[in-house]
């Protein structure tokens, strides 16, 4: 049993925080782990990614081979496309709907989202709505993590201690708000997963679940 996940986004969006949470959850469940990330220059607003691999056996390479990722989890829709060659045919894409237009040649937004919804197993998340409705706009990354969890071998409660560890210095209110965002993302992910598993196309599942927000 193995899970290969590409985490993606733009420097400053909290990709490495998602990685920290998943790493620790995987360690707590007894998996072997390798998680390669980007530090240094790219973190100044460039494309940031992480290869996260965990398994019930030894993980060999720090990098996921092309065509073998089980999931792309991205806080930015264009960044999904950058790493799509890593995904295998039945791999899942979990992406935020909100573009981060930090470059002059950013492609047309609608075309990107339409292309994502044509993938067999795609889940778009209005992470901004989830984060702001819980009065913690910076927690979009936690909404994304929550939405991805139904596709992974974890329970929501696995993350309680790591959310505590990550945010406790910012006060209990921030800890609770992050927990709420994670849980709401999780509910959204669960609703979409049920529909995808029942054979519903990704774009229909996206439309149907919008009312849940």
């Amino acid at each position, binding site marked *: 049993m193995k899970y290969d996940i590409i985490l993606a986004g733009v420097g400053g969006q909290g990709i490495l925080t998602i990685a920290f949470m998943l790493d620790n959850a995987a360690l707590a469940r007894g998996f072997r782990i390798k998680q390669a*990330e980007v530090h240094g220059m790219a973190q100044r607003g*460039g494309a940031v990614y992480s290869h996260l691999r965990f398994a019930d056996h030894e993980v060999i390479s720090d990098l996921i081979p092309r065509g073998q990722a089980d999931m792309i989890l991205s806080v930015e829709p264009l960044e999904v496309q950058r790493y799509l060659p890593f995904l295998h045919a039945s791999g899942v894409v979990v992406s935020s709907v909100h573009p981060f237009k930090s470059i002059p040649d950013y492609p047309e937004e609608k075309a990107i989202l339409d292309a994502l919804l044509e993938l067999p197993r795609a889940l778009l998340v209005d992470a901004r709505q989830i984060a702001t409705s819980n009065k913690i706009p910076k927690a979009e990354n936690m909404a994304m993590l929550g939405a991805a969890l139904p596709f992974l071998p974890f329970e929501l409660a696995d993350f309680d201690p790591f959310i505590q560890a990550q945010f406790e210095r910012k006060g209990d209110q921030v800890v609770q708000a992050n927990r709420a965002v994670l849980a709401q993302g999780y509910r959204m992910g669960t609703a979409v997963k049920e529909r995808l598993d029942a054979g519903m196309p990704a774009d229909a599942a996206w439309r149907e679940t919008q009312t849940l927000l």
Partner: protein
Amino acid sequence: MQKKELLLGDEAIALAALHAGISGAYSYPGTPATEILEHVQSKAAEFGVSASWSANEKVAYEGALGMSYCGKRALVSMKHVGLNVAADPFVNSGVTGVDGGLVLCVADDPGMHSSQNEQDSRYLARFALIPCLEPLNQQEAYDMTREAFDMSERFKTPVMVRIVTRLAHSRADVVTGETKAQNALSTPANVAGYILLPSNARVQYDKLVAKQPALEEYAARSPHNRICLDGDRKVGILCNAMAFNYVREAFGDKIPHPYVKVGIYPTPMGLIRQLVEAVDEIVVVEEGYPFLEELLSGVVGVAGKPIHGKLDGRVPRTGELNPANVAAAFGIALESPYTATLPKVPGRPPALCPGCPHADSYRALKLAAGDFPKVPIFSDIGCYTLSFYPPYNAVDSCVDMGASISMAIGAAHAGLHPVTCSIGDSTFGHSGMTGLLTAAYEKLPLTVFILDNGTVAMTGTQDTLLTGEALVKAVIGLGVEPEHVRVLSPLPKNLEENARIIREELEYKGLSVIIPRRTCVQYRR
């Protein structure tokens, strides 16, 4: 007691050094090595060790050597190009030998994720006749660093641990061990060995050469060098540490050909000879330069046995290895269902942060320089190099730490005026002061910008050693006229005023230093 922890490769090295009983750690920030000293710092009080940033890698290396001289164990870490700066003490510490264990961890950056080249530090280890350990995962990074300290004291030599970005910045579960007590303070039994006067140095160099057979034997017997002669002998595989992972990944864990994996140097010549004798042709896969491949190929190659690798293009000569390009070297294509239908995805390079003081500094400089014919801005290593990209299009060079001022000196000698250069406060403390001293002594007509943002920003806001008023005093102390040391506040509202001051100094036919001073927006966030 054994404990399982989740550690970056860098952190595994730091923790291993602490557990190996170091008394101090030394470094200058540089990706991908920065987190080594940061991790030591986070535990410095608990372990009772010194762990502060040095002004540059040479100072760091010499600090570690001085600690070793006193019988204590020391770790020094740096990025690959940092070892160019520290090459002088590094090479000479092979000649002096060491007392307390001295381990250099150097982090190479194949693919240049955050560097100006992808040089391979194994060449420097061989050049200095210093042994080198190359871990292939985080567990080995931990285990080998501990072993390196024991080797260092046993063979009285510094030991290099060479890692690469993918290991430095990749996390894995690591089993860690007991903490060894720190060594007692002592002074060397053989002081003459540290005094490299020619008469002593000849003796020491003979000793260094004489150590080599024992080091070669240690490496040849080490489990870090692995030979397997099973499988299809049409092809044999020779690879170094990280490359071995991708080879295993390509074949689904069961490598169907004989192979040698090298994880410790001096190069195990005997093992490589055995492999070559057993097979019809050899594929060499290395993360880094074709170090083993060049040794193997020599001048005339191996008669009747083709050698494939980076030199004939079987493996890409430049850039980083990955599962796909290593698999391709063995004719295995990693398919993706999506590559055919994918539109071209625009690049997203890093950029100066919103509100960055450097942006305001370059806007003012460009505005002032607009009144003159082309004014080149020789520049340096740091976030401000990102001003190369639009909309700034500011800097004209970035070569190595401190090169900005020294290159501007050459341009002034060539007859250019005005000549400007820009350097950050930390880079100035690292290698800029000697350039400025030269310019001041010669009274050269240069306009030097020292961009003082109060931190080492690019690598994650580590402490800078020279900032604020101390920086101004240092500049004056090096011989710059106080009236031509101008401190600016780089803010959008000051653009016109700053440009006016810069224009004055560009017109001046002498040396001036302009210090735009504003704290980095990333600092302490």
